[in-house]
């Protein structure tokens, strides 16, 4: 779901330096576990909850927020993206293009452009309205230091249909039990034939 866009050079040297640095590092502040969705209320508790994913890519920390956390079809929603350099904390300045594709099973996965947004007050804001329920992937693309960056985030519109896991689990169990039953019957038949031959 997430695309690594990194250089991979001099890894052993870097790992050694890093290990030493880690061993000597002091305690620092905690924050959300990277890359996992977290749900929280906004500062103004009258607003609905938001979903937030923090991640890092290349030289940037990226925070992605969805308002509201559980958007419904036909409902206006908004994506906020905050991107800042890991080393200096400087905010990203280049524009971000937002694309969307359907992440469901057996559907057209063609990407559509939602829009391209410039940073305003440190935030990239992209509005959306979806007509149908479904699981979607939002891709945020930007360029920094001459390198292309591309990050995928999940977006669920409406209720997810969750019959698939139960169907797969039950289906596989039934399949195994039926297969075992067939083998057992064959075994019995073979034994019967063997017994008949022995009797003869």
């Amino acid at each position, binding site marked *: 779901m997430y695309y*690594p866009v990194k*250089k991979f050079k001099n890894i052993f040297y870097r*790992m050694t330096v890093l290990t030493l640095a880690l061993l000597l590092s002091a305690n*620092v502040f905690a924050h959300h576990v990277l890359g*996992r969705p977290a749900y929280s209320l906004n500062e103004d508790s009258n607003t609905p909850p938001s979903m937030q994913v923090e*991640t890092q890519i290349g030289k940037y920390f990226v925070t992605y927020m969805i308002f509201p*956390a559980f958007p419904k079809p036909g409902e206006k929603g908004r994506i906020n993206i905050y991107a800042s350099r890991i080393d200096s904390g400087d905010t990203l300045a280049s524009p971000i293009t937002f694309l969307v594709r359907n992440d469901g099973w057996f559907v057209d996965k063609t990407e559509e452009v939602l829009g391209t947004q410039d940073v305003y007050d440190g935030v990239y804001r992209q509005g959306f309205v979806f007509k149908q329920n479904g699981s979607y992937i939002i891709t945020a693309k930007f360029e920094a230091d001459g390198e292309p960056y591309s990050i995928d985030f999940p977006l669920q519109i409406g209720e997810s249909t969750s019959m698939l896991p139960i169907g797969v689990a039950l289906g596989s169990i039934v399949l195994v039990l039926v297969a*075992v039953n067939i083998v057992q019957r064959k075994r019995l038949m073979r034994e019967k034939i063997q017994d008949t031959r022995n009797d003869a």
Partner: protein
Amino acid sequence: MTMTHPGLPELWGYLVWGFMLVFGLWSLMAGTPHELQRRTLNLEAFCLTRPLVQFFTRSLWPLWLLKLVVVILFLLVIVAGLYGSPIAERNLATVLTWNIWWAGLIVSVFFLGSAWCAVCPWDTLAGWMVRPRLWFARINNSLDLKVPRYLRSVWPALLMFIGLTWLELGVGVTTSPYATALLSLLMVVLATLSMALFRNRAFCRYICPVGRTVGFYSQLAPVELRPIDADVCAACTTLECYNGSDKVDPCPTQLVMGSLTQNTYCTSCGNCVRSCPQQNVSWRLRPPSHEAVADARPHWDEAWFMLGLLALTAFHGLTMMPFWEQWMSAFAQQIGDSGQLLVSFSVGLFISLLLPVLLYALTIFVLRHLNGRQVGFRSLFTGMVFITLPLAFVYHIAHNLNHLVREGVGLVEVFMNPLGSGFAPLSMAEKHQRHFDMLISQDALFVIQGLLMMFGFWLAIKVLRHRGQRLLPQAGWRMLPVLVFIIAVNGFHLWLLMQPMVMRM
């Protein structure tokens, strides 16, 4: 903003360290340990405990009822996970599975041994589907194949445990109700598949990471299922405990009661109690250290499992330290990892598994050389590995108590609304409230954690003295490398406990 739980106070750190140093030095200077006295207490011999023990062991329906309750809860977890709110702290699936069950399971071993295995819903559901016992007949949908030789070890369980840890901490199953439900379904499918192919409960014995973890820790449990009179078992020719009877299934993990010396593979199902025609099997109390000290027999695969337990318990603690994410983030930058940083996490997991194993292997290597290479490396490696069991067990309990006591407070709320429908995420005020709303007082928790660390150290020293005496009778001070290993591991665990711990949900 992420909340953290306060760590064990400094005073407790000094106390435990003082205890470790004084007791450790004593163990080096003390003479040969006394012969272990086997004192056990048959729970059916006392009028107070007899009715309760007989109620649960002689008849099938109390256990069946318990199984039914657990299965209903398990199915509720699946439904809540698949159809409920994705907010982890509002959904029964995540709260019940990770804050209560997973955290409480290890604590339960301290009192009840492997009792969980007797009511495990994965095995119960698999049993109901593959070998249902109906009112008119017994149906067997299993091929009853022999388990292949290469699978007859705890290596599959160790791999599963590593995989579970990866899913739990790396992928973040603990914070996703949906993923929790998927994992639950997967375990049922695996248990069913295994039962449909192999005879008895191959899944429980060789594959289940939870069952084996509980099994190994049960070596330190104060209860055991054993024969009342060993002579009766010695004279038995029918072995109903192993073969089963018309009405009772055979031992699911193929144990013969007469030769049972360790709890590791006992699932506490009580089949042996019900099937024995002489009524010669019963629950009894025992000192918690006997099995690890003397009775348990060393095996190569089991040694690795115990080392795996040690490494993975410490790893669990490590990943909940506030600095872990900074480490991962810095490492990810170096290797070019992005997104959920799974590559970085996997490397961290691998290093965390490797370090304790290397440290232990080095300890055994030095021990062997100090003692003139009288005993083979493999024998020492498997013989001394039991010292790791109490160290892992007490840290695991102390760590899990943090989750259970500090994060288990929202249980009533999620039972009232298992799917979390309409609930918003916890507000900061609620998070703070939960922070103070503990099941027991914080001071009581610290006392328990501190005492547990001392208890684990004491057990490890006891194992060292007795097993060391048997393997290297003349060793004396030359046991120092193992003592240093015990102090280092327990000291590291203590340090982890003293750090603030990130609140899971």
